Structure formats: C-alpha cells, structure tokens
C-alpha cells in the first residue's frame, strides 16, 4: 500500500527526469571542451596555423554557451518541479484529509498535519529547487568520468572506483564508533533547545517572582556546558573530514604517480594522461560535494517519510453501507474508547432521547468530551455501539451525521476571513438577514456592529482579533444558522464573559426548543432543568436521572451542585463572622 504512493506526481516525475537529462547535457558540454583544449595543445606543439586552431576554439565556445543554456534550463525546470510539488503535496494532503474520517484525523497528534503541510513540504521544495540540481551535477560527473577512464586506462579507472567503497567503509566504521556521540549530540541539542524555550516561555513567571538570577544563571551555565561539549565533538568530526579528504585526494595522487610511470615507459599517451588527471580532480571534487549533501539528503528523506506517512493513513470505507442519518434517539451500548495511552471512557451505556435535553456533568477529565465526540462521529468506539435512531454511527456517512448534528466546541475555530463569512459557514446558502438574525440570537450582533468594518471585519489568523468569548458567540451563531435537529454543546459558553453569559443561555434555551440537545458543562446551574442528567466519573457513568432524583441519591452530583452553589456565592472577602 505504502509503495503505491510517490512523493512526486507523474507529471513532476517526468519533469524531474527531464531536469536530470538537461543537467547531464550541461555537464557533458562542460567536459568535452577539455578534449578540444588538448587537441589545440597538440596543434600548437606541431605549430599548425591559427585558423585551424580557431575551429576548435569556436567549438569550445559553442559548447560552453550550450552548457550555460542547459544549466539555466535545468534550473528553470527543477524550480518548476519544486513549486508545483509544493502545491501538489499540500493539495493532496487536504484532499486526503477530506476523505479521512474525523476519527482518523483526531487520532493523529494535534498539529502533525499542520506541521507536515507547513515545514515538511517546504523542506521538499527547498531540496528539489536548490539541492537537487547540484546533487545531480555532483553525481553525473563521477559517472561520466569513470566511463571515460575505463576507455582510456583501466588502472586509472580502478583507482577512482576503489575510492568509493573505501569511503563508504570508512564512514561506516566512523559512524559505528561515534554513533553514540551523534545520538548524544542530537539529544543534548534538543535538551538545550527545550531548556531555552522553557526559559523564554516562563520568563513572565521568572520575572514576576523575581527569582530571575537563579534561573538565568542556571540556563547560562547549561549553555556554556553544552557549547564546550559540542566543541569537543566537533574536533572528532573535523578529524573525520580530514581523513575523507585524504581518501579523496589519494585518487589524484595515485593517478599522477602511476600515470607518470606509464608515461616514462611510454605505455600511455601524454594527452590521455593529462586529461585523466584533470578528470580525476573533478571526480574528487564531486565526491566531496556528494558527502556534504548526505545531510541534506537525510533531511529530505525524513520529510518525505513524514509526508508519506500522512498520505498513507488508510481511508475507512464507509460509503457502501452509508445509511442516511435520521433524527432519533442517540444510544450508547457498552461503549469503550481509549486514546493512544489511556482509556477515556469504558462501558458507557446511555440514551439521549430525541427532542429532549440531556446533560453530561462530572469533574474535569472524566470523559465527557469523549462522549460528545463519539456522538458526532469525531471518534468511533473501540468496542460497543453508538447509534442514532437505531443505526450504528460507523454505518452512517460522515456527511450525513454532519447534517444532523451541530457540534459546538469550546475552542471555536475561526477562519481568517470576514466575520460574516465565518458565521456563514453554518449554512453557506443562508441569506444576509438570516446571518444577522443568528448573530443577534447569539448576542454578538451589537458587538459586530460596534467594529469599524462591522460584518466585514477580518477575524485575523485563527481569530486572533477576537476574544475567546466573542469567538464562542460567533460559533454559536454558526450553530443557530445551521439549525440542525441535534445540538451538542461542549463547554460552548465557558469563555463568555459574565455580562453576556445569561443572555446567551436564554438564547440557547430558545433555539434548542424541540431539538435533541446534549450539553457538556461544568456550570451546574445551567443544567438542572435538563430532562436527563448523566453524571460521569472516571470514564464511567456514575448515575443518571432528573435533577430531583440525582440530588437525593447521587453523592457526586450533590457534591458538584453544592460546590457550584458555593462558587456562585463566593466572595473574595469573606463576610466577617460576628
């Protein structure tokens, strides 16, 4: 399966082969003039007239111009490949994400898609545009040189060929001996980076508590230790580079030494020998370049792997059984779900009745949000069954669930476009007055109208120009505009300021009339009217029922309610007890 995916599209693959061919042509055009140069040398030795020599000169000039032209063409093609790959991979990741189920997306580490779309793809682009042409030149030259050498003098060819395994063996021995050092280097560098990051991120705390000197001295000392350790390691690396250059230089040296012997014996032509020495020099230079590119190739490979690992997340095929989601009771029977490291909910059975209100309460981290995500198919159960109107969610197409359910999260995601467009996401076909109406209901209309550009105000990247509460109200406006029969509110009003809180709650109450609502919240005072209250504790259901039943029999519920009462009536300055 994995092998089926290639990094480059077929078109870009063809183009990069073209780039390689053009580059090869450029390299050949750069090599041939040396033969002409030697012909000129011979003609000069035999004192032939200048016009005969001039022909050779013109050929040289023509070849060199061709070399530059090919070089330019190669750059043009490889840059095009780079840019179109940049677009192509990003598009493929997006469309792959569109095909993936939300549960697969949610299963990835947060930010890993973004990391791939941003940095890894960029790495590939930089490599193809900049490193690849040079790398091609550096790999074509040794091949061309070796091919030539075998036709001239097998001994020379052998000397150069042997260099390659010698270099490889040396690198392997070196890596074997020092790989632990390199690992340590990566680790220490990572640690140093993390330490510095932590220091910078925590600087406010360090500053406020005025313990700066201690922390600052600590970080400076660590930096010093790190640098002096790295210096030591770099000595080892420098030594290895020295050996590498010696191995590479030995090619030219041996060619010269042995060749002179042949020349004195008369077993080689002087012309062939001179050109062999020049080419041996090119060969060594290219090998040296190739070695410096190993790091870049490694980096490229790791980016390639990261991209392919995202593109090869298998798509779950739900389409064939795709039933349409119909409004109805939402039912969990024996549902368990675990994140990579720990169980989130286990053996949950519950029913959220159609056209009734259900509330999920419990301590932070008890598993309420996981249950919410299981309802709308963001997550699929590991075992057990979640069904809507009797149909298991894993058999319903995602689009159909999306149509049925409005899921409003605590972190309302904003697109960097106008506020109007952001609300319109709720229903792209809605008319302007419907959008205004939704905003009014969500208690955000007046705020929007107070902005300089009103509904055309840009939300900023990730909604950075809006406060958490404003984003949540816009997100509620989306929900109101969508007008879906099932509403899941996951702490959807937690960041709304005290001044608007009650009005927002009244609005939610109004729009959720006659709908199936599931409210996940810490605010116990907002849910006591719910038709069914489910108390969640450590990933299991502790109890469920109406407010009156629970308050009399469920200890956790009573504790939460009491705490809520105390929180509501808390005063910073406690009343003096007389």
């Amino acid at each position: 399966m994995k092998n089926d995916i290639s990094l480059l599209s077929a078109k870009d693959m063809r183009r990069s082969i073209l780039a390689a061919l053009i580059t090869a042509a450029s390299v050949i055009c750069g090599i041939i003039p040396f033969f002409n140069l030697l012909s000129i040398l011979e003609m000069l030795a035999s004192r032939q007239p200048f016009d005969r020599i001039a022909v050779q000169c013109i050929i040289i000039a023509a070849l060199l111009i061709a070399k530059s032209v090919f070089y330019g063409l190669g750059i043009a093609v490889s840059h095009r490949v780079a840019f179109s790959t940049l677009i192509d991979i990003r598009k493929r990741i997006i469309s792959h994400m569109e095909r993936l189920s939300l549960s697969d997306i949610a299963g990835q580490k947060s930010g890993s898609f973004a990391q791939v779309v941003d940095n890894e793809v960029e790495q590939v682009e930089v490599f193809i545009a900049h490193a690849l042409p040079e790398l091609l030149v550096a790999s074509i030259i040794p091949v061309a040189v070796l091919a030539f050498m075998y036709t001239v003098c097998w001994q020379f060819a052998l000397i150069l060929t042997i260099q390659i395994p010698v270099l490889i063996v040396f690198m392997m021995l070196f890596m074997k001996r020092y790989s632990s050092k390199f690992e340590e280097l990566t680790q220490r560098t990572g640690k140093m980076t993390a330490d510095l990051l932590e220091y910078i991120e925590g600087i406010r705390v360090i500053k406020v508590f005025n313990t700066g000197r201690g922390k600052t001295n600590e970080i400076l000392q660590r930096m010093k230790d790190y640098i002096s350790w790295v210096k030591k390691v770099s000595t080892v690396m420098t030594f290895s580079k020295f050996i590498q250059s010696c191995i590479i230089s030995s090619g030219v040296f041996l060619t010269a030494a042995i060749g002179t012997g042949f020349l004195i014996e008369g077993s080689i032509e002087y012309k062939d020998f001179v050109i062999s020495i020049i080419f041996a020099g090119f060969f060594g230079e290219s090998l040296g370049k190739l070695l410096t590119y190993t790091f870049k190739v490694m980096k490229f490979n790791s980016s390639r792997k990261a991209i392919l690992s995202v593109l090869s997340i298998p798509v779950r095929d739900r389409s064939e059984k795709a039933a349409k989601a119909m409004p109805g009771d939402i039912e969990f029977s024996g549902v368990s779900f675990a994140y990579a490291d720990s169980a989130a909910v286990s053996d949950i059975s519950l029913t959220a009745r159609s056209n009734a209100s259900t509330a999920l309460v419990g301590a932070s981290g008890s598993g309420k949000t996981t249950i919410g995500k299981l309802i709308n198919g963001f997550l699929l159960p590991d075992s057990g069954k979640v069904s809507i109107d009797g149909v298991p969610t894993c058999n319903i197409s995602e689009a159909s669930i999306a149509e049925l359910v409005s899921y409003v999260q605590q972190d309302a995601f904003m697109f960097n476009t106008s506020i109007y467009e952001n609300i319109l996401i709720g229903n792209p076909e809605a008319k302007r007055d419907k959008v205004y109406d939704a905003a009014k209901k969500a208690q955000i209309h007046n705020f929007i109208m107070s902005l300089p550009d009103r509904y055309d105000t840009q939300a900023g990247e990730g909604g950075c120009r809006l406060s958490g509460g404003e984003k949540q109200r816009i997100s509620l406006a989306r929900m109101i505009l969508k007008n879906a029969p099932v509403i899941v509110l996951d702490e959807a009003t937690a960041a709304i300021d005290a001044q608007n809180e009650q009005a927002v709650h009244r609005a939610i109450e109004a729009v959720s009339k006659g709908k199936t609502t599931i409210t996940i919240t810490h605010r116990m005072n907002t849910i006591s009217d719910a038709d069914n209250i489910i108390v969640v504790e450590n990933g299991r259901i502790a109890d469920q029922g109406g407010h009156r039943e629970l308050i009399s029999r469920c200890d956790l519920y009573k504790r939460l309610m009491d705490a809520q009462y105390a929180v509501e009536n808390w005063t910073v300055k406690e009343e003096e007890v007389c």
Partner: protein
Amino acid sequence: MLKLLFNLDKMEIRKMIGASVCFAVSSLCGAAAILTALHMIFGAVRGTVDNGTVKPYIAAVGLLLLSQAAAAALGDWLNHSAGFSLVKRLRQSITLKLQQFSMAFYTREQLAEVSSVIHKDVDTMEMVIAHLWSRMFASIAVSAVLGAYLFTMEWRLGAAMALCIPIALIVLASGTRKRQKAHASNLSDNTEMLGLFLEFTKGMPILKSYKKNASLQRRLDSSVKKFGISSTRLANSIAVVSGHYFVWLEISFAVVVTFGAYIVLGGALTPEEYIIFAILSKEFIKPFASAESYYVNYIMVKSSYDRIRRITDSPVLTDNGTGEFPQSSSISFEEVSFSYKEDKKERFEISSISLTVPHGTMTALVGPSGSGKTTMTNLLLRFYDPHGGSIRIGGIDIRDIRYNTLLTNIAVVMQDVFIFSGTIYENLLMGNEAASREQAEEAARQAMIHDEIMEMPKGYDTIVGERGTGLSGGQKQRLSIARAFLKGAEIIVLDEATSNVDPINEQKIQKAISNLAKNRTVLIVAHHLRAIKNVDQIVVMEKGKIAEVGRHSELLDSKGLYCTLWNAQNKPNSRKRNAG
C-alpha cells in the same frame, strides 16, 4: 558587512582570520599540486624527468595534497570554534537582555519571536559569518593571488581573461534586482497560500461538520493559482539571470583558450604555460561563480542580524529607582493618564484617574470590557509607565523603587500559569528560593493543594513533566497561588475571571484566593459582581474614567452603572434553583 563583523570578539576575529588563511593555503596547495603534476608530466614528455628523478615530484604532489586536506581541516576546526563562541555570546546577551524589559514586552507573539531569533537567527549568524564568510574571504584571496600570478605570466592574456568579468557582474547586478522583486512577490504569495492551507488543515473538523463551503475553496484555489503564476515567473527569472551570468564567465574561458593559442603561435608563451594558464584561469573564476550566493548569504545574515538587534535594542524599562519598599503598602493613583498608542494621545485608555487603596484593604475594579480595568493593574506593575500623573505606594512613586523590589512586593495571580519541568517543590520555590520545606508545605496548604500533592506518587518530589503535564488546570492554578503565598508580598493583584474547571476545583481555587487576599492590600479586576460585594471599595469604570466609587450597598442605592451591571448578572428569573 563590517558592522556585522564588529559583532565578533577579538578571539573570534583571530580564529576567523586563521580559518580564512587556512582555506586559502589549502586552495593554493591544491593549485600548486596541479602545477607540480603538470611540470612532472611535461618533464616526462620532454624526457627531462625519468624513473630516477620522478620521486621528488611525486613526493611534492603527495605533500601538497596532504597539506591541502590538513589546512582545510584546521580551517574547519577554527571555524567551528569561532562559530560556537559566537552562538554562545549572542544567546547569552539575548538571555541577559530578556531580564531587563518591562512586563509589557513579554507578549505571546514577542516570546515566540524571541524563541525563533535565539535559535534560527543566531544559527544563521553562525553559519554565515563563521563558516561561509571565512571561505569567501579565502577564495577571494586565492583568486587575487592566482590572478596576479597569471598577469605576471602573460599580462595580455590576463587582461583578456578579466575582460568578461565586469560584463558578467553587470548582468548579475541588474538581473538580481529584477529577480528580487519576483522573489518577494512569490514569497508573499506563498505565505498567503500556506496560511490558507494551514487554515484548511486546522479547520478540517469544522469544514467537515458543515455543508461544503464553496467560498473558502475558491479562496484557496485562487491563491494557489496566484502562487503558481508568480512561481513560474520566479523560476524563469532565476534561470535567465543565472544562465546569462554564467555564459559570460564561461566565455571568458573560451577567450583565454583562443587568445592564448594566438599568443603561443606568436611565441610569447610555451604550450605548457598555455595549458597551465587555462587550468588556473578556472580557479581564478571560481569566486565569481559564487558571487550570487555570497550576496544571498549577505541578505540572509543581515535580516537575521536585524531581528537580533530588534531584541537587543528594544527599549528596556527605565529602572533607576533606588528606594526601598515602603512600610505602608497603600496604593494611590494620582491623576493617572495612559494611552497604548503614544502618538495618539488624544484617545486615552484611561484619563486622569485618581484612586486610593488604603493599606490592608480590598478594592475591586469593575466595568464593561474595554473600560480600562486591566490597564490599571498593568500600570501598577509597570508594564507601562503612565503618560501623565503618578502611581505611589506608601507615598513613594513606583518609578523611584527598584523594579525588582517592586515586583518582589506585589503578588499577581495570573491567568496563564506556567509550570517548569522539575519537582513540585522546585516549582513552589519559584515564589521564594530561600523557602524551607515546611514553609513550602504551609503555602500549599493555604493554597488548598497540599492534600492533592500528598496523594501524588512522590508527594512534593513528584516530577511534573514538560510544561506541567499531569496536573489539571485547577491544580496548576492553585500551585501558582501557592507560589504567591511563599512570596509573602503585601500587595496582591487579582484577576477574577472564570477559569474553565469543574465546580469542585473552582471552589478550592476560590478558597485559596480568599486566603491569599486576607489582610493584604488587594486590587481585583472583577467580572462576577457577586464575588466582590463585600470588598472595602468598589470602583466602577467606564470608558477610561471612574464612574462611581463606593461599597456594594451604596452603589446599588445610587442606581447608577453598577446597579445596571448587577441587574444584568442577577436576573432573578434566570438564576436556577440550587441545591442549598
């Protein structure tokens, strides 16, 4: 460029010069090895070199090649050494500088910028200045030496060789300017496109939860198209400029070959000298072939340097106060005015505010959002200094107190809690490095977190991982309050905002805050009016001015803004019945 070099200290300059010399020697040894080899070959052809006399030549070639490798290695080593020292010094100076700003500097964006500067830009400085520049100086020096040698060998041919270089450089300079433009527009198109792609990636759950949104898709498509066009233009312009430039450098070789042959026929040059000239002319051209990358490196290092300077040159807080912290911790704002935009003084964030918080009492700041409540506490902490009036503690202007002393004596319960990786105990010590274990435990008790710490696997020695993973939001909050206890400051600044934790946790946080505020001088930015109804003084702010001052009951009676706010938050019909 010189300005950039002044960043190096003496030792680093010496090492860099040493490295340049090493690289130059290395290249010259390489060239000399080629020369010696050619002499040996020509000798063999002419018969002056035979099996008996060839050994010194071979030895010389070997020695020169060895020196080439050794000099390069030594140069590398010196480079690394200078580079690491530069990295260390730059990071050190940024870190030390970071200590001197006012709190206003440390916004999230600013800190992200600092992180990126301290890693990426410092590395760029090292890479370019220590590594690439010493090689550049070396290759320029080698080119000069070889050029001089070739000129003395045959000046006419030397002149012919150099003829094309000015043309090439003019072509490059004019082309680069055009290219830079193409590059800049391509870069901005790319940034825009990436932003949209990232938005799609991050917003995928939202997009999938709603009907397909054609307008967002169109936005992305048109951005991709725009990038496609500008990148094709850029690719073409890069290709044309580089191709055009290299043509001239290559032609200079053709000129050498042609004109050289003519001179040889004239008898002024031997064929041997001719070929040596041709080969060395290639070495002479080399630094010109890299001219473009030198320029690119310069641009890169310059922008990194500018970013570093932006941090190290940022204005620090004027901290020339010498006063001790006063005995009384009463706070008074006297005719304080402040605007975030210094140039637009007409629109003050707060204007002419006068207010006194008597020693050991609690004052709450309330009012609609944007009324200037948070600005007041920011000014007290000297995030900014007021543009008019003064703030005094115990009668002393806070600008006359050493900034560190001021911060030591004010405890802030912040919304963003930062937990350092380390043990819980170490994290508590942030509040007061000299605190004993008993004091730390007492502070934790006061902050309602002691019992939960004791339940952890290793109690106070439990390691809380990177950024305090393993602690709930409520626990982090209380740990931060415990730090404030340890600090023992007389003045407390609070922001009573809702934290999204369950009520049981929230109740504990509230209790911790009440404990902390007891018998201290407290300034609270309040949102839930019920929470502050017992405080000694309530200041109602509106549009940067004080609207009302008084106690809860007085303010309710006066039927002003406070009364309106109170009623909005406490509509009797919307308050649910509670368990009590």
